[in-house]
């Protein structure tokens, strides 16, 4: 009896349906006081002064903090330590934190915010990346490439000009993907308290307790060993809780100053300001193809709206071009990207992190290419699918690839051959594909340490406790952990207690992001559990006088495979092992394999394994109103192996849902107030009512198939499932709209207004298209020249000055 691959109730299922899962805001410690944050009302200004005297005198107020209390900046990436817990001298967007009040009651703290006087010297605000690019002064940050350019990159993987010369046709298309936000139903919350020893404890709705731990240590100048971070289960994250946040540092500081618990729960409006959501990206694809559809060359340019801070932006910038090559064979590839600072809430990693935007452009352009060449879009993709065990032009290593099976699955189930291009006007089908990482190959700070660690404790009670720093954000990471350990030890998942996301108790796991947990924690858990099984097997072997190799661990017993009656209970086995070895404990750890991408910037994109997805979306489009209804989605996901199919299907269908939200309605947009009202750049819709997301009434029927070809690098063959299935939805909707009414919407979201505009244009004899007209002339830097493997490349850039220095050093020493 094994539970691997069997549909099961997750281990924390009962807690969730009884309301007993303790989220951060559910913690009510004795003597708790409450924190509220004053946020900037202007998008860009120098702070001349802050007067807190009236707030400090307000009855019930215990403490008022400002930037003066926080001399050390922070940020998620070592290269972007550009945020202040409370702004010291400059605010950069409406919502930037300026001061904090801690009071006995939350309402009192709220009232006192109104008593703080901030004197701002207004600076010009930049609402769009082009505005920021064309106006290098004033700089929003004093670091970055120049002016308001945060990060610029350029790569040549082979001679793309030669590739275009070889092409029969060259296609150039410009696309725009609007920003959107995670909208987890749980608002961020944090509780901080000194423990009885005087050390700091922080409970927070974070996906990354380890990175928060590091940020707190740095920003508060406290030894990390004196800080304990406990990641409470997250009420949804989707990437929105993967940065350390100012409010976490502020309440930690306040708790240490006041010597008592301090709590903050953000309002929904504040959650919109924390953001770190999808970057708005303008992109241009130039793709050369042969008449049979095979790609000879691709050139991708992206122009990225980063918002006011760095966040993960450097990584996001690379991600806008990292994964184009892992789905289809692209022999020559050129990629240029540029991320701008603007005076809006910072963008960061949302489900798919930087890759859904270019995936949208790539898949819509492929649809156009297929039409122009007179090839079926599914057939075209099947023809150009990348091969397994391949290193791509940009040195991403693909192990297994089940994309062709995914395409065949959705084509068959949707009756594509009989329905595509054959439905009545107003009805249409669209197909698109995608890929995603099963964990980032590198951590966010340089080190050679394991990415995930698991410890097991077993004792004479027969109980097993599994410790891991991984964080339960709803995806079921605790269930993956106990499922794997239970399988190897032959016990039931319910027999195991999972202790996770606690920096005092659990070994480091880098966190719940980049779809890394199942693969990385899973492999660490396998190692720890196999070591434990080995300790038990040694003892049982001696006791029963049966060779170790013949012992089986199953059904809560350890027995002789040749004589199943001869054996003992699992508890007896643990007792025997404790007699033989003393106190029992094992560890396991996982570090991803080294990537063949050795060039600078090649650290973003590599992964132990890539998942693949294909989907077909059906739409009904009203040709008069442009209204779009999605009755059905067929999706197939190459997961390698589904450890718990109930949870795997939930991730796929949750991704379909979130993708439909992005495709049809969700947008994080801003407007400029009229000059007489401050001219500020404000969030247009910082509320759930106005930020539209799909409800139960908007959901189509979803027909899901999991494609299971175990990947040698995954635990029991498992690859990721939490992010990849979101990516093909947006382009599939756009392609389906074209099939339905014959207009191209080269922009996300795809709204009725845009469809009507394109239909009107088409009726007037103009191209039936809605989308950006042109791509600005951006000065990208000198490219890194990285010859692909088939042109004799070794993964390095031939013109990297660092590499030349290294080669010279090597010459000298030899």
């Amino acid at each position, binding site marked *: 009896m094994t539970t691997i691959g069997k549909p099961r109730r*997750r281990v924390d299922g009962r807690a969730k*349906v009884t*309301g*007993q*899962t303790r989220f951060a805001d559910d913690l009510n410690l004795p003597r708790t006081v409450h924190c509220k944050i004053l946020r900037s009302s202007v998008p860009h200004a120098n702070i001349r002064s802050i007067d807190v005297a009236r707030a400090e005198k307000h009855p019930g107020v215990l403490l008022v903090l400002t930037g003066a209390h926080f001399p050390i900046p922070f940020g998620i990436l070592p290269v972007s330590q550009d945020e202040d817990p409370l702004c010291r001298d400059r605010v950069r967007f409406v919502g930037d934190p300026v001061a904090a009040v801690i009071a006995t009651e939350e309402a009192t703290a709220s009232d006192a915010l109104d008593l703080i006087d901030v004197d701002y010297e207004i600076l010009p605000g930049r609402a769009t990346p082009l505005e920021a690019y064309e106006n290098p002064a004033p700089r929003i940050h004093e670091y970055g490439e120049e002016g308001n350019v945060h990060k610029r990159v350029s790569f040549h993987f082979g001679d793309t000009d030669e590739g275009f010369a070889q092409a029969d046709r060259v296609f150039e298309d410009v696309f725009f993907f609007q920003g959107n936000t995670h909208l987890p139903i749980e608002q961020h919350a944090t509780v901080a308290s000194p423990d009885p020893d005087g050390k700091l404890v922080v409970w927070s709705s974070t996906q990354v307790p380890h990175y928060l731990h590091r940020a707190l240590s740095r920003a508060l100048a406290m030894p990390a060993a004196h800080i304990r971070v406990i990641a409470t289960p997250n*009420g949804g994250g989707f990437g929105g809780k993967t940065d350390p946040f100012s409010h976490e540092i502020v309440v930690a500081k306040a708790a240490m100053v006041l010597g008592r618990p301090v709590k903050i729960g953000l309002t929904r409006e504040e959650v919109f300001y924390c953001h770190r959501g999808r970057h708005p990206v303008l992109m241009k694809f130039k793709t050369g193809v042969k008449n049979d559809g095979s790609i000879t060359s691709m050139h991708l340019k992206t122009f990225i709206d980063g918002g006011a801070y760095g966040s993960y932006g450097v990584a996001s910038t690379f991600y806008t071009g990292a994964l184009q090559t892992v789905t289809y064979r692209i022999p020559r590839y050129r990629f240029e990207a540029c991320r701008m600072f603007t005076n809006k809430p910072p963008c960061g990693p949302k489900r798919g992190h930087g890759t859904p935007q270019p995936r949208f452009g790539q898949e819509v352009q492929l649809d156009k290419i297929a039409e122009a060449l007179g090839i079926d879009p599914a057939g075209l993709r099947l023809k150009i699918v990348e091969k397994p065990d391949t290193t791509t032009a940009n040195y991403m290593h693909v192990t297994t690839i089940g994309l062709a099976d995914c395409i065949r699955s959705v084509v068959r189930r949707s009756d594509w051959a009989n329905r595509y291009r054959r439905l009545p006007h107003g009805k249409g089908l669209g197909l698109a594909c995608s890929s995603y990482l099963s964990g980032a190959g590198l951590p966010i700070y340089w080190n050679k340490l394991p990415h995930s660690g698991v410890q097991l404790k077993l004792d004479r009670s027969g109980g097993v406790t599994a410790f891991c720093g991984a964080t339960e954000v709803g995806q079921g990471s605790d269930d993956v952990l106990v499922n794997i350990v239970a399988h190897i030890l032959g016990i039931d998942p319910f027999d195991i207690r999972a202790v996770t996301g606690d920096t005092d108790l659990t070994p480091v796991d880098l966190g719940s992001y980049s779809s890394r947990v199942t693969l990385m924690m899973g492999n660490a858990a396998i190692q720890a559990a196999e070591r434990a099984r080995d300790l038990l097997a040694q003892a049982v072997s001696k006791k029963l006088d049966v060779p170790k190799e013949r012992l089986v661990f199953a059904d809560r017993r350890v027995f002789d495979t040749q004589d199943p009656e001869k054996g003992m209970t699992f508890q007896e086995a643990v007792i025997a092992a404790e007699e033989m070895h003393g106190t029992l404990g094992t560890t396991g750890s996982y570090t991803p394999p080294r990537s063949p991408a050795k060039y600078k910037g090649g650290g973003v994109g590599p992964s132990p394994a890539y998942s693949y997805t294909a989907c077909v979306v059906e739409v009904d489009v009203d040709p008069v109103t442009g209204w779009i209804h999605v009755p059905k989605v067929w999706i197939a996901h190459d997961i390698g192996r589904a450890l718990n199919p*109930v949870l795997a299907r939930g991730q796929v269908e949750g991704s379909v*849902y979130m993708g439909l939200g992005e495709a049809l309605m969700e947008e994080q947009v801003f407007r400029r107030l009229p000059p007489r009202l401050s001219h500020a750049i404000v969030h247009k819709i910082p509320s*759930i009512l106005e930020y539209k997301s799909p409800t139960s009434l908007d959901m189509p029927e979803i027909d899901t198939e999991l494609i299971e070809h175990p990947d040698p690098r995954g635990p029991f063959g498992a690859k990721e499932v939490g992010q990849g299935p979101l990516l093909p939805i947006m382009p599939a909707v756009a392609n389906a709209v074209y099939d339905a009414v014959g207009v191209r919407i080269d922009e996300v979201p795809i709204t009725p207004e845009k469809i009507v505009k394109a239909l009107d244009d088409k009726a007037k004899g103009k191209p039936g298209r809605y989308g950006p007209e042109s791509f600005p002339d951006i000065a990208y830097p000198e490219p890194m020249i990285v010859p692909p493997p088939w042109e004799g490349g070794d993964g390095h850039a031939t013109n990297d000055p660092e590499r030349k220095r290294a080669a010279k050093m090597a010459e000298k020493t030899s």
Partner: protein
Amino acid sequence: MRSLVPLALTVNGEPVETAVAPYKTLLEVLREDLDLTGTKHGCELGECGACAVLLDGKPVLSCLVVGHECDGRAVTTVEGMAGRDGVLHPLQESFADLGGSQCGYCTPGILLTAKRLLDDNPDPTRDQIADALSGNLCRCTGYNQIFEAVEAAAAKMRGR
């Protein structure tokens, strides 16, 4: 000073007497004064449905109900869904088994809204379920596993 007002109500079948700040919502009274943190909040503006509870058997958004106005009334929260014997409600069982709950944050509000639906209509169609739950946002599941869990619970309840 904001003086407290007395409040006597029935919560999950048990009489409760307390005194609450007059400005507090039912949501705040439940979570902060009665320590019933199973009821969640996602907006405190009546937009997300996470705080839904049953007030005299009917679903309400507890963030839009003034706490002291519930004097003399009966409130059911997720903590009151299981029987006194600790046996879970069929909806709780099916949500746990069938993936109806991922992060679990919207779950209490959805469970109570679905309970009222099944109390009124033991055999709802898929459309009726979607309609009943249209005020409860879930960002994790994509709703389909929630629909299936409600249908499974309904079938189980009809069969007993």
